[in-house]
């Protein structure tokens, strides 16, 4: 993993390569992470590809519900020759959940970005085919948001058997 100093050097190069992209660096449990402004994600990934991180392992989204800006998208990058991993994180608010899509130059992000759109509602501009991937196409709501109820039926014991099986919400 790029250790703390290596991360700082990398972030410094990145700052003068792509101005006002890097918001913060983080070194947690031996793993390096870069917090990046959403608009410049394409440029940052290209820069890191130049530095050897040629493999995009995973793109996953998450919901920091009580905190603002609410949605997070993270890109796990892997350098197969130097055996190095780095994470690029970005945060997007609820009212303007737009993130430029990296699918054109990283084809592996295609389905993963569609899944983030399906589950969280983050819109990836420039994605060739942004449709729902897991939920049925006519499903309203984004299930993995933290304020979306888990759903399911209440377990019927004898005392609430008469209540029937209405859904929780």
């Amino acid at each position, binding site marked *: 993993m790029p250790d703390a100093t290596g991360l700082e050097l990398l972030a410094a190069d990145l700052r003068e390569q792509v101005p006002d992209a890097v918001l913060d660096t983080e070194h*947690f*449990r031996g*793993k390096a*992470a870069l917090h990046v402004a959403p608009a410049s994600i394409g440029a940052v990934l290209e820069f890191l590809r130049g530095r050897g991180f*040629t*493999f*995009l*392992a*995973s793109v*996953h989204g*998450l*919901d*920091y519900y009580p905190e603002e800006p609410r949605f997070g998208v*993270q890109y*796990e990058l892997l350098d*197969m020759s130097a*055996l190095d*991993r780095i*994470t690029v994180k970005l945060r997007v608010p609820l009212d303007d959940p737009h993130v430029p899509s990296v699918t054109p130059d*990283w*084809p*592996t*992000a*295609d*389905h*993963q970005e569609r*899944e983030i759109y399906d*589950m969280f509602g983050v819109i990836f501009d420039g994605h060739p085919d942004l449709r*729902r*991937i*897991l*939920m*049925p196409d006519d499903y309203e709501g984004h*299930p*993995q948001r*933290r304020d*979306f109820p*888990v759903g399911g039926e209440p377990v019927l014991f004898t005392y609430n058997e008469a209540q029937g099986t209405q859904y929780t919400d």
Partner: protein
Amino acid sequence: MATETRHLDRTTTLEPTERIEQHGDLAPEQELLTLNMGPHHPATHGVLRLLTTLEGEVVRDIKPIIGYVHTGIEKTAEDKSYWKAIPVVERMDYLSYYFNAMAFCGAVETLLGLEVPKRAQYLRVIHLELNRIASHLIFVATGGLDLGAVSMFWYGWRERDMILDLFEQTSGQRMHTRYIQVGGVAEDVPRGWEQNLRKFIKAMPERNQQYRALLAKNEIALSRLKGVCPLDADELLKYGVTGPLLRAAGNPWDLRKAMPYSSYEDFDFKIPVGTEGDNWDRFAVRLAEIDESVKIIEQAIDGLPEGPHIADDRKVVLPPRHELATSMEALIHHFKLVTEGYRVPPGEVYYPIEGPRGEYGCFVRSDGSSKPARVHMRDPSFVNLQAFAPMVKGAYIADVIATLAMLDPILGGIDR
């Protein structure tokens, strides 16, 4: 036959007249048929729907449509405390349940900064490799079935039952055993287990030889697999493919060697690598991996160190039963762990391990409470499926079935 493929945005069959202006020369003699190799299909290894556009027998365009077994596992895991989330996470990729549990527990242990004792790491490695062999056996069985070698099905399940007996002996259940806990393994191995395991280690390589004898010289299997739907290594890397598919194309990337975890560095084993990256290499690489896994298990069982089978940090690990009768403090820990579960310091960790289909990376974010704030499993089948379309464009329908069998997607992992 290398007519370039026209990307059809409309998925319904086009009226003959419409098609004429849209495709010009193709018009008179061949009409494109859009067909669902849908969710309920014997050869899609689960409920994968392939929307294929066919020109006669040749596949012009294929669109995998998934989500038919989406279970909302990641949402359910957020609703359960950490030690309760393991059974839910284990049911994602239902052929490699030990790997799901290992990835999740590895991530939580990294968050906790918990050190797993050596014996537990060895036991984990043995069970992971047994599970890899069981998963590859099902690949060989259903792959052979798809190619028409129906007897492979029975051989594959005969060996798999031997492995599942071993799982049952250590953890009491055949599948989804919840044997890997945060901090180590649930129980130490019972007495007769080692003899059974050695019997299995002796039997497996020569059974593997039988598979090679059955299929490697089989004219039909060879003609269906050799040189069919190849994809070279850097094209696969663009699509994020890892695991046997990538190794079959010549790139020896294996996390067990590259970034060893859970004491894999103590064992010496080789990484089988293919050359062309066609269906035959994908098949042969997995058969060779079974032999390598048997070697790892043998070294692990020989060098099994003494010591605790689980960490002894009472804040995270349940105290042993006999201690409850004597010490009050153990009772308090037990009660607290069972009711509320342990709290994990806030943070985000991505913990990748090498599974039978590629890199299983479990991303866990904790907000300090006793329930994970976010659990995401980077499932290899989900990412490898994206490389399926470029593989089969321009191939016959029969090759689509063979390639899908060699891709070995597990829909539980894809749809999560």
